[in-house]
């Protein structure tokens, strides 16, 4: 029998010296996570931080920001600060739900389309058709057909995202399935499901995570746009889109009613995009090696 070889020399891929170095190497990830963490914590703790966002006080209408009402009040005398913070809950929830929903569905369809060449043509033509439908029109149609509500808004925003995820996942599967270790898995008698789960799916995880961040950003903007058009979340529920929509007439007299939700929306979308960019650079081995 052959001599037993020494298999030492385990070289760790890359070890960070500490948190400081990680911050220096990945400023966009750190900034994005920090901003999201602050707004996320504020959203979760909203009931403790703010008063009732629905409380109407006709005598305090359109007050400018002061010590009592940090962000001023709106045309019904409601506290803009309370509504903005509460609005973060809806925005983040919609963003995350759309990302989770469209990624799960898109991942399954993409894996099937990429792995089983026979159904690929049919699935992808169907996805092309879905991509051809204008997403706002689709949302309007869905809300018109149903009673509306957050669930319908989430579905309406998710549907147009699915084909994009499918295309991404399929392209990863197509390049991965040609690798020798996939052939080796077939030769060693593994079933399709196991090959996909163990050998193909892991390659799709990194690009899908990056895509998820961009979906979250786009979904929050779409929700705001739908709410602004009056076909999103019911108008009494505080969301950033609803707030901007309801007070577009007061832009000149009480700009704070629009400025604060708009600024929060901008900052959150920016933070998510920063995180996505950072993750993409970090998770893509071709880019990571150069850094």
């Amino acid at each position, binding site marked *: 029998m052959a001599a*037993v070889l020494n298999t030492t020399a385990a*070289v760790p891929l890359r070890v960070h010296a500490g948190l400081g170095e990680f911050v220096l190497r990945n400023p966009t990830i750190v900034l994005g996570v920090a901003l999201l963490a602050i707004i996320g914590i504020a959203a979760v703790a909203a009931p403790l931080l703010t008063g009732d966002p629905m409380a109407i006080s006709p005598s305090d209408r359109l007050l400018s920001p002061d010590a009592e009402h940090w962000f001023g009040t709106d045309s019904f005398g409601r506290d803009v600060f309370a509504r903005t913070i509460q609005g973060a809950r809806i925005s983040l929830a919609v963003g995350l739900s759309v990302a989770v929903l469209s990624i799960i569905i898109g991942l399954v369809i993409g894996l099937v389309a990429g792995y089983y060449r026979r159904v690929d043509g049919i699935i992808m033509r169907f996805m092309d058709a879905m991509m051809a439908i204008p997403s706002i029109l689709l949302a309007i149609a869905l809300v018109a057909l149903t009673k509306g509500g957050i669930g319908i808004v989430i579905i309406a925003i998710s549907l147009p995202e699915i084909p994009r995820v499918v295309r991404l996942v399929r392209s990863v599967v197509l390049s991965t399935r040609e690798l020798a270790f996939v052939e080796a898995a077939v030769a060693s008698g593994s079933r399709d499901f196991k090959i996909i789960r163990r050998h193909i799916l892991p390659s799709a995880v990194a690009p899908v995570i990056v895509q998820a961040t961009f979906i979250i950003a786009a979904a929050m903007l779409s929700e705001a746009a739908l709410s602004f058009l009056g076909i999103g979340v019911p108008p009494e529920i505080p969301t950033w889109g609803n707030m901007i929509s309801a007070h577009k007439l007061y832009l000149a007299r009480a700009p704070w009613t629009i400025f604060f939700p708009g600024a929060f929306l901008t900052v959150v979308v920016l933070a998510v995009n920063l995180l996505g960019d950072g993750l993409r650079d970090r998770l893509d081995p071709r880019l990571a090696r150069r850094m």
Partner: protein
Amino acid sequence: MNAPVLEVSKLQKNFAVHRGLLRRELAQVKAVAGVSFSIARGETLCIVGESGCGKSTVAKLVMRLAEPTGGTIRLNGTDITHLHERELRRHRRHVQMIFQDPYASLNPKLRAADIVGEPIENFEDLSATERQKRIATILQNVGLRSDAMRRYPFEFSGGQRQRLAIARALAVNPSLIVADEPVSALDVSVQAQVLNLMVDLQQEFKLAYLFISHDLGVVEHIGHRIAVMYLGRVVETASKKAIFSEPLHPYTKALIDAAPVPDPRQKRERLLIEGDVPSPLNPPLGCHFHTRCPFATQRCQAEVPQLREVSPGHHVACHLREDGYRGVLSSAT
């Protein structure tokens, strides 16, 4: 000799060449055009030939990683040529494969234990601890320490990776291992270690090998019988001894003469051939080799030579044999 482990008869594989928007079929490339051979238990059959002669395609067809166009493949007496993947899977445990590039054939995201354990999971219902024990034994068999189990492929050298690939192939006690150029990606010093390991394992487990190679030095080391392929056809097959001492086909002779010899001062009579392998898209009529053969006759240009047994176990497909040109090769300079 007992029943063959693998029996391949008139195996064919055509690849369609498509072009254009509508993927119109332009032509068929006959990558493998009627190849027959058999391998007995404990035997090594080497297939040699230049790149593009179809030898790797034969390996893939035997593994059913590619669909044969024609012919039959019998594994331990069962015809597996057209079995569906579901039924085929039961037979896969009897034939395992070692790939050329040990950097590409091991999933970089899996630990050694998972790589070697994959075929075991597929075919045997073992508890986790029993499986770990099996994996440790197999790793030891291929000369890796059992603490290699928790390591990832990138932590191994090329030779160690190929040992890992051999361990995976051995894991479910196959009767046949198809090895597609298993050492050509390795350093020469490591090649010998891996080849010796394969020979040791063959003796210990009575393994049959289908060994694909372009390197005659490697083939001389490991082969029992040798089949020489040229443009999708087998032109000569014989025992290793007969091939090296008495090559009958001009192409075999040229291959052997082209192999480097350690002593550069050694005077040799060499049969050298010129030109490149003709395009398999449009192979020459008659004997595929006639465009490069110094002895080609008019018959060679017109008629395909059949593989005939000229002495026990020695088959050759060459008109020169039949036409009584026995002396041609030995007197050739």
